[in-house]
């Protein structure tokens, strides 16, 4: 027994010593199932993956942008959904009732800033510790794309929210997470600096269809638009002119531009990439456009009837239908009409999709208020039949910049510089493709209106309308007049809607941001 005691104590003592000596390793654990900072950013391949990781926030932002940049303006509205007011924040964006607690604006803000943070991480880490195996051209590609994306995110933010907190370095701690707003000028300086540097590092697309990466063409286009927004036409013009030398061209048929078979075509300057399937890369825009219905089959043409609860947003207005020229091929390519009936529980059941050309003047589109069973929807992301057995799973990309946009911006830039005659060929290239007679006027003011109108119909539903109205100073008069019509047309549009003041040119800083960072100031009027 005494033997046992000693053996036991020896065992105990050695166990204690043993445990003590290995305890430091024992309590050091890293996740086995997740990439972490400690084991990443080591190789060129790691950085290339990190660069890819800077693109997906484009998609998150795109899901909010059509409300904030298109439905805010006169091209689209929504079909009032009497049964589900869960979308009231979306509606309030269209009616100028939105406040700092709007649940959409904060998502765009967050998505763009996530993109910015991802680019900051790449740019900081590649400078601090570039991998040994990385060549200069690889490094330029990564830096150039990251800078361009960072500028792109800031450019959307500054146009939506005004002056911004500028996060130019990786956030590594709570201390570096709180940044106050910089003036709009500083934000634009940063955007111009990033795009200018990216311009020197990137190349035009080497072949078509393009990869989907940021190219020199995208950078030049965006920098040109930045200058256009700042009304610095002299800087803008050569950038747009350079794009015309990069191998881009208009597709012969306007409708083909939006066909999923023609992704990243010669007309595409930059588009947000999607792919249907189960790996999380799919888009779902068409489900937002078509009506709320328990039965999507007759519209989307797939074998399955899905219950679409997300729809009836961004619905083309009578105003935009009227804006197309007679014989304009873009109307039928941009807007479709669905006819149907109401079931016993007043849900819309579609019967067939038909052309807008036979339904140009469909009065009363609201659900639940009339017996009308005709609904318009955007056709640009409509590619039936949808054969995937999954709901909210489509293949359509989102166009950001198209070559026709560059041509119209070049025309605008030249006209603003007093060269209307030089502007006309670029404008008419776009009109000709649409089947619209060429513009002839060389009156600068008239041509300015013509170009603006051309942009509206050529780029309808591509998130340009609201920013164009704001940068050309047309937002208040155009939207005030439109608001009067809206209130007359829809009984549920309240009297205090469409109160459009200069404060409404930008959105409120999200409430959570103001509450979280006491150093942030709110935009006036919110």
């Amino acid at each position, binding site marked *: 027994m005494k033997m046992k005691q000693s053996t036991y104590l020896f065992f*105990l003592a050695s166990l204690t010593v043993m445990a003590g000596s290995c305890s430091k390793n*024992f309590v050091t654990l890293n996740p086995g199932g997740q990439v972490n*900072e400690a084991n990443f950013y080591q190789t060129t391949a790691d950085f290339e993956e990190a660069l890819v990781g800077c693109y997906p926030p484009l998609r998150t932002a795109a899901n909010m942008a059509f409300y904030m940049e298109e439905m805010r303006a006169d091209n689209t509205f929504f079909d009032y959904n009497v049964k589900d007011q869960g979308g009231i924040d979306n509606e309030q964006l269209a009616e100028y009732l939105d406040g700092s607690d709007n649940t959409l604006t904060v998502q765009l803000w967050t998505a763009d800033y*996530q993109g910015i943070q991802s680019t*900051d991480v790449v740019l900081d880490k590649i400078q601090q510790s570039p991998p040994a195996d990385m060549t200069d051209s690889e490094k330029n590609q990564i830096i150039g794309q990251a800078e361009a994306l960072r500028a792109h995110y800031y450019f959307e933010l500054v146009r939506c929210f005004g002056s911004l*907190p500028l996060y130019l370095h990786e956030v*590594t701690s709570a201390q570096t997470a709180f940044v106050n707003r910089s003036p709009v000028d500083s934000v634009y300086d940063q955007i111009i600096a990033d795009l200018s540097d990216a311009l020197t590092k990137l190349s035009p697309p080497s072949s078509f269809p393009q990869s989907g990466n940021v190219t020199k063409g995208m950078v030049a286009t965006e920098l040109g638009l930045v200058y256009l927004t700042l009304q610095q036409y002299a800087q803008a013009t050569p950038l747009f002119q350079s794009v015309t030398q990069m191998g881009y061209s208009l597709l012969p048929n306007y409708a083909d531009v939006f066909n999923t078979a023609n992704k990243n075509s010669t007309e595409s300057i930059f588009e947000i990439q999607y*792919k249907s399937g189960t790996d999380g890369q799919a888009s779902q825009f068409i489900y937002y456009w078509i009506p709320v219905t328990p039965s999507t089959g007759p519209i989307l043409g797939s074998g399955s009837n899905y219950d679409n609860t997300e729809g009836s947003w961004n619905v083309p207005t009578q105003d935009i239908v009227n804006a197309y020229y007679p014989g304009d091929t873009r109307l039928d390519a941009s807007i479709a009409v669905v006819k149907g009936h109401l079931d016993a*529980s007043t849900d819309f059941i579609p019967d067939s999709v038909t052309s807008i050309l036979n339904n140009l003047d469909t009065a009363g589109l609201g659900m639940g208020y009339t017996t009308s069973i005709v609904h318009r929807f955007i056709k640009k992301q409509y590619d039936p039949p949808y054969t995937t057995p999954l709901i909210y799973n489509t293949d359509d990309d989102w166009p950001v910049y198209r070559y026709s946009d560059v041509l119209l911006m070049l025309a605008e830039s030249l006209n603003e510089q007093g060269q209307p005659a030089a502007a006309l060929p670029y404008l008419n290239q776009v009109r000709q493709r649409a089947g619209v007679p060429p513009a002839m006027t060389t009156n600068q003011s008239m041509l300015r209106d013509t170009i603006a109108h051309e942009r509206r119909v050529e780029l309808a539903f591509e998130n340009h309308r609201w920013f164009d109205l704001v940068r050309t100073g047309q937002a208040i008069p155009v939207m005030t007049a439109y608001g009067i019509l809206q209130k007359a047309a829809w009984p549920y549009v309240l009297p205090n809607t469409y109160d459009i003041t200069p404060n409404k040119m930008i959105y409120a800083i999200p409430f959570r941001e103001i509450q979280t960072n006491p150093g942030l100031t709110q935009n006036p009027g919110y």
Partner: protein
Amino acid sequence: MIQASARRISMLKRVGLIVSCTLLFHLASFAQDTTAKKPLPTRDTVPPHPVIIRDTVPLKPPAAKDSASRDTTQPTRTPASDTLVSDTSGGKLEVTGTVSLGAGVDPSGSSVEVKGTGHTTPTDSTGHYVIHAPPYSVLIFSHVGYLTTEQSVNGRTSIDVRLGQEANTLQQVVVSYGKLLKRDITAAVSMVNSTAVQDVTASEFGQKLQGQVAGLEVQQTSGIPGQAIVFQIRGAASLNSGNQPLIVVDGQPLNSDVTSGTGDINLISPDEIESYSVLKDAAATSLYGSRASNGVILITTKTAKIGQTSITANVYYGLQTVPMRGRPDLMDAQQFATFMNGFYQDKITYESYINPTTGTPSIPADYANPAQYGKGTDWYGALIHTAPMENYSVNMSFGTAKTSSSTTMNYFNQQGTLYNTGMQRYAFRSNNEYRPIERIKIGLNLAPAYQIDHNTRGGNLALNGNRQVVAGADLSSPLISPWESKGVYNLSTASFGMYALPNYLQQEKIMDDNQTDFSFLGNAYLDVEIIPGLHAKTTINGDILTQDYNAYYGTNFGEFGLVPPQPPASSTAINNSNNTYSWLNENTLDWNAKFGDHSLDVLAGYTAQKWYESIRSITGTGFATDATPWISAASTTTGTSNSSSWTLVSALARVNYDFKKRYYISATIRNDGSSRFGSNKKYGTFPSVSGAWVLSDEKFFPKWNILSFVKFRGSYGLTGNNNIGNYTQTSLLSPSNYVLNGTTTLGEAITVLGNPNLTWETSKQLDIGGDFTLFNGRVNISYDYYRKVTDGMLSPLPIPYASGYGTIEYNEGTFRIWGHDIAISSDNIKHKNFTWATNLNIGFNDNRVISLVNGTPIGGVNEYDDYNRTAVGHRIGEFYGYVFQGLYLNQQQFAEYPKYATSAIGTTRMKDVNGDDTITIADRTFIGRTNPKFIYGLTNTFTFKNWDANIIVAGQVGNKIMNTNLQNIQNLDGIFNIEKSMQYRWRSEEDPGNGKVPRTLSNTTDLYREVNTNWVFNGDYLSIKNITLGYTFGKKMLRYIKGVRIYCSVQNAFMFTKYPGQNPEVNDSKDNQTQAGLDNGSYPIPRVVMFGANVSFL
């Protein structure tokens, strides 16, 4: 003795033991030599001594001073005559007799000792004993919890004694790493014996503790069988890092996740448990170091007493019903049709409404003639039924000098009051201790449990919560019957113009969602008493948990907004499973010694623990038929797996010292190293010090019966909390893939910002208290004041979204928590045939946020689903919302008051809190505390002859509850069934209703559905938790039946509260104090009427 010790030491030296041990032995032997008496026996040390007969007891009669109790008429015997009486044991008498503890109390485990010899024998299960003792010796009769009684033998061969119950202060209490007499405790500890709460029906042991302990708040947050109990010791100690106390079963800390109910703690059968100790202050808990800041509940499972041979069976069967009180006050069919009729009338008047089925401005047919309807369907009532609950358990205990074994087998089955829900548990526990030779104990405890949760785990169709089964059914149209025809469900429950709602009764009945849990707790130990008073103990604990969850959502699946049938392509099956194991090795040395008036107990130990989990999740979609609900039949399958682990190493030490059992001082320290923190912050040290003074033992203290015992206690110490996820010190990347060149291309982005400086959350706690015994020991009072300051609370710190992240795990700010615990127990009446005892406890508790990083508040920043805010100067998680002031009743008021973006005449008028003359989200403010001012419990126990009765009351005062379900059942868009009071809405300036319910005008109703003071209710309640009436039959009814008690009881008998909802203990977030006090429409709490029997065999 000295020689014996010396021999021992030299022996040890010969085998080459390490030097430090030798030092300990020297100390020990010194102590042994100077110890006149053995230390007070603890339960562990009571009688395992084998019979050793020593010749140190005089065979002569004792000295005269001992003879007072002697029967003086008896002739003085000589040693020779003793021998004549009985010589079988070398000059000793064979003394037999019975030890009794009073009516109905199991006397097994009592012991009889020949004074001064150490010769001890246990009684059998009937209290009978046989001992050989010298004729003039003295026998000591003892039983834990009872007064030790001495009897002189005086030649008698038969001695029966009845032991009186010990004073409260001499009860043994389980504390961290040991046991102490209540008198010797310097910390704030409360103990509950399971027998005191044996009649409380419980799927989780926590239900039994409701109202039992001052400062322990036990809330049944919903009626979901087996998953609803949430604990808080002394209020919220943490933000959202977990407020659950550490649960330690027989020394083995358990992993728990009360939020999802997936930990081990709800797998413990309450029938296995012998006692609960609730450790409240730092002195009591700091030996558990980094996990102890929320307090500790020590569970001791049943073990066999020496001499015990018993088989007991406990059986009960009960019926559960949902009380009428607290059901939502919804419109019946006629009321709803009337409301909807008016709704469309107003639409026609104000909004040019055209009825789409007629094309004219007319009332829809469903509502045109409300008088045709009666009560219609009560959807809430349709979901529930009377459900049985049953429990069967058998305990077998055998204890001898060498082995003790206790085995409990339990089957518990609770069907839910919601159809097609319930849980079953098979639990087994076997606790065994072997004492092969003197001073060695080997223990082996095994406890497997298997549990089946049927349809209570949530998934896509949860029972609880916003628009889930219970709350969702409230919204269904009372105009529609659950049945289209006999046996055929109506698929939709929406009347004209209503939101798409499935038939929740159908959904409930076709639900296919099951989880099985298999857990295995195992525990082995070796305890060696190296020399008297010095114990070395090694334990190995293992904890294995396997969970398997399967659910299928077929073509008939529906939920809020989704009415069946669904296309087969959407059918989904889910299988989630995980394996968790955890091992813990603890090595302790415990040295107990007494030098004259000085007592010393020194404990030192080293422990290491590892927890590991691997998880799998598989989803299959697209099923040709509902007949094959397994993923093998799916057309598309996706799956993932992952693992995680944490480790903890610790060194701990404790010194307890007392002088004359009058002055006590104790110090503890624990050093923990945790894998959860950054490389330079892994280790934390948690010391505590405490002291006590038994004033009533001072010479100057008068010997009062009115106040016989006075003890003051004080403690101060540090405890920690490491309740955060694993790996939070490192930034984590997640796949962030994108399409390039038409193919999915791998991308990575940081999604979780790490904090390498993350470290312990530390609480500094002061506790001052006292224990008092009054009125001849009939009243015991215990009081504690505590004040806890928590620094660096672990919490996700909200950071601006502009940083690219939403939060960073952080040691947030400083909080102060304070309160008072008062416990009073009183034997009001102690008559032979009638007793009445009362236990009352009250816990006051409050907290304040002293500072937060950057002053950034937590919560209250989003338009929807964000109801609480934690901000500096306020309590943790106060409700945050608009202040409802009524309506803009007329044009004049509309012009006069500040307006919201969508305001119109007749709409909701909120208070302009910030005075900027407009109503925005910035006008939200603090609108109610979620923590009660105090909680209380009151237990009254009566016995009358063979009858016993017990009434347990529990309650709380001062908190508010937010009924967030009102955003649905006060919805004015005509899409849900709603509360009856909604009929008194504003319809015109001439017909403004009750002035509190706004109009139904389109686009204006949203503000009424945002968080506001209308949803906040007083949470005070008094609940009669349990009433029991029992009857114990006399002994020896049948040959092998020792005793039978039958009883009936009513659980959740009555609820007195002004809270209109069903359950004032509701808390949807369960454990997250930053989102406390929300009632989102929860699974109803049943009232249980049950009958049971306790039977003892042998």
